[in-house]
């Protein structure tokens, strides 16, 4: 088999990214629903808009955010590129270009998944149905992942799929973590804050994993460190970055696609940042800035991957 056409490498990379993004948008909406429900008058749906830097755009298009309008915006709005339906559509359009390189089962699953999502109407999307919808999106994405695991040839295309998936996942974990940064050091009697951190852990399917790591009392800084630096938790930023490194090594050594010096430099910078952490004491401010920094480094690695592999020269 000849080498991979550069354009298809990009399609597969973005397939991985968009599906992972859809899954995480669903996770974020579910967390926020819990926050909003437990704390009327507290943090509102504005938070989700801030997290995606969408506040200004949203205000212009839809006015003051209400739970329903924000949910519609992120679930079914076909003009909002970060909505779940748009992510699924982009994933599918990328997959359409590379149907010959992925398995039939992967395509079929994605096709059925997207068809189901695009049938959702505004009246279907309410605070009360969110949990169910969000769960079905997460499950749909995880099912796809399982299908890919069992059917996708571990050749060059797979490496790009993994690269896209892990870069997006690392990025999304930092965003989810950012939803709790201002409650990083709650006062001793702030029961609500504890609840929030547990919700956050559960939302990344990390509650039991964390418990097995830290039996007994849990502290928010430990939870943050767990989501950032754990070597074994599959959504931890460090583990994701580790996978990025492994796949880049595979590309170089097994598939003869050498890294450019620029890509190797960006990769090392990211690895260093994730390896050292934000310093000993994690303050809310420091965490927030650190997460920002990680996001920017991830974006630079992503750009360098594009320059290295997707141009085809």
């Amino acid at each position, binding site marked *: 088999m000849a080498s991979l056409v550069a354009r298809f490498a990009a399609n597969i990379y973005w397939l991985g990214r968009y599906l992972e993004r859809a899954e995480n948008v669903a996770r974020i909406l579910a967390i926020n629903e819990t926050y909003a429900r437990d704390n009327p008058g507290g943090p509102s749906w504005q938070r989700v808009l801030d997290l995606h830097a969408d506040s200004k755009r949203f205000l212009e298009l839809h006015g003051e955010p209400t739970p329903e309008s924000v949910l519609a915006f992120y679930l079914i709005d076909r003009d909002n590129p970060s909505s779940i339906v748009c992510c699924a559509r982009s994933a599918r359009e990328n997959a359409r270009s590379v149907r010959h390189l992925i398995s039939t089962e992967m395509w079929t699953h994605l096709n059925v998944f997207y068809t189901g999502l695009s049938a959702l109407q505004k009246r279907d999307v309410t605070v009360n149905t969110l949990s169910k919808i969000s769960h079905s999106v997460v499950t749909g994405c995880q099912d796809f992942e399982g299908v890919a695991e069992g059917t996708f040839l571990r050749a060059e295309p797979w490496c790009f799929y993994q690269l896209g998936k892990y870069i997006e996942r690392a990025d999304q974990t930092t965003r989810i973590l950012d939803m709790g940064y201002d409650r990083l050091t709650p006062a001793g009697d702030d029961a609500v804050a504890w609840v929030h951190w547990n919700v956050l852990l559960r939302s990344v399917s990390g509650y039991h994993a964390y418990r097995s790591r830290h039996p007994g009392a849990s502290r928010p800084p430990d939870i943050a460190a767990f989501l950032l630096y754990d070597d074994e938790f599959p959504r931890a930023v460090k583990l994701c970055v580790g996978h990025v490194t492994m796949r880049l090594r595979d590309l170089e050594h097994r598939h003869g696609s050498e890294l450019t010096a620029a890509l190797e430099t960006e990769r090392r910078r990211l690895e260093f940042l994730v390896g050292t952490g934000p310093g000993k004491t994690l303050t809310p401010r420091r965490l927030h800035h650190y997460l920002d920094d990680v996001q920017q480094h991830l974006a630079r690695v992503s750009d360098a991957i594009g320059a290295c592999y997707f*141009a*085809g020269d």
Partner: protein
Amino acid sequence: MPARSDNEATHLFADYDPGEWFCELRGRGRGAHTRDIQKRLGALDRAALRKRAKDAAKELFNLGITFTVYSEREAIDRILPFDVIPRILTPNDWQQIESGTKQRVAALNHFLHDIYHDEKILKDGIVPEDLVKTNANYREAMKGFSVPQGTYVHVCGTDLVRDEKGRFRVLEDNARTPSGVSYVIENRHLMMRAFPDLADGIPIADVDEYGSHLMRTMQDVAPTGVTDPTVVLLSPGVFNSAYFEHVFLAREMGAQLVEGRDLIVEDDKVFMRTTSGRERLHVIYRRIDDDFLDPKVFRPDSLLGVPGLFDAYRKGNVTLANAVGTGVADDKAVYAYMPRIIKYYLGEDPILENVPTHICREPDGLQYTLDNLESLVVKPVGESGGYGVVIGPRATKRELRELRAKLKKNPKNFIAQPMVRLSVSPTLVGRAIEPRHVDLRPFTLTGKSSWVLPGGLTRVALKRGSLIVNSSQGGGSKDTWVLG
């Protein structure tokens, strides 16, 4: 119509009446296996049959066996409607189709070589020179260039119909980039999943080998000296309605699927842009038309092609399949001469006959056409897609008067044929089984030698009385079984 119990022994076919047409399932000489299949079909419960048909349609959609229509912002996938009652070809039918299509492709290849080299057939006055030279699909640039193995038409789709007496007739040759073969194979897979019981114990020729035959065909015609050629399929891209087929074939062949923007020509050699830089390629199975292949030689506004591709081709550094300039051979005007072309190059009578065609540029043909205008179908040559066709029996007096004037003024522009009384095949329509008209497109692959995929695409006109099988006009498809 009297109500019938679903339990009646012959119920499914009880009201089935093919009338004056030849029926593909019940016509003469259909053999014991066909009777078996009919019996099994007839014994199926109506509701169960409908349910299985519905499931099959849903599966096609989920699998993405679709053609895609693009609106402003959405890709809309449509399935080609699938009818669950197979179309049966007996061993005798197939023997004739297989040898007949091979013969036709051999003649087409001789003809194309000749008109781009010595022009013997033109000089001998068998085919009028202006018919070839003024044809929109004649490519002057191909003059004097010899293609590997002498093969111009690597993939040919021959459209066949069957008349009321059960005789096969060729309706047209598709010698450029015929499509539809993916449905042949997917229809079979679907059919075997939905109706494993129907085919049980009946020998049906396999269709799964198409991809490997296609790959071998492409390898056969690699440039001289290349022993392990890199083969790619060149597609116009995801916006092309046949993109599924391109994906399907690339996968079945184990070839790369590329678009023009993935390729680059340097020193008259063709490369593709890959993750590890540029890689040389040798054979291109192209699914884009001549006009769009190379903006430097053909249409300068083409964004689908590759600048410099044609020079690389003429230097013999890359093979294009089908060859450039084959469109002149599948033109309606040339079609009329096919029986003579076959005779000229092969010294044989055609195994598959044309629909009798009157060539209006010839005095006898014109006279016959003018005398029988009310019963003939008159087609302008050089047009495609049914444009300008006048169907005598359905035309108004005024239309006929206008046609008569046009014919007299410019007879060269026309051919005339009798109405073909297309055969029918039992088809599930709503809750009933009714006769619907069908055609057949077998696919012939030619590299060093020819191979025909057993069966082919059966298209069915789903509207009652309609003779138009095109998917854009309410046509569907059926699985086609060649019995052993």
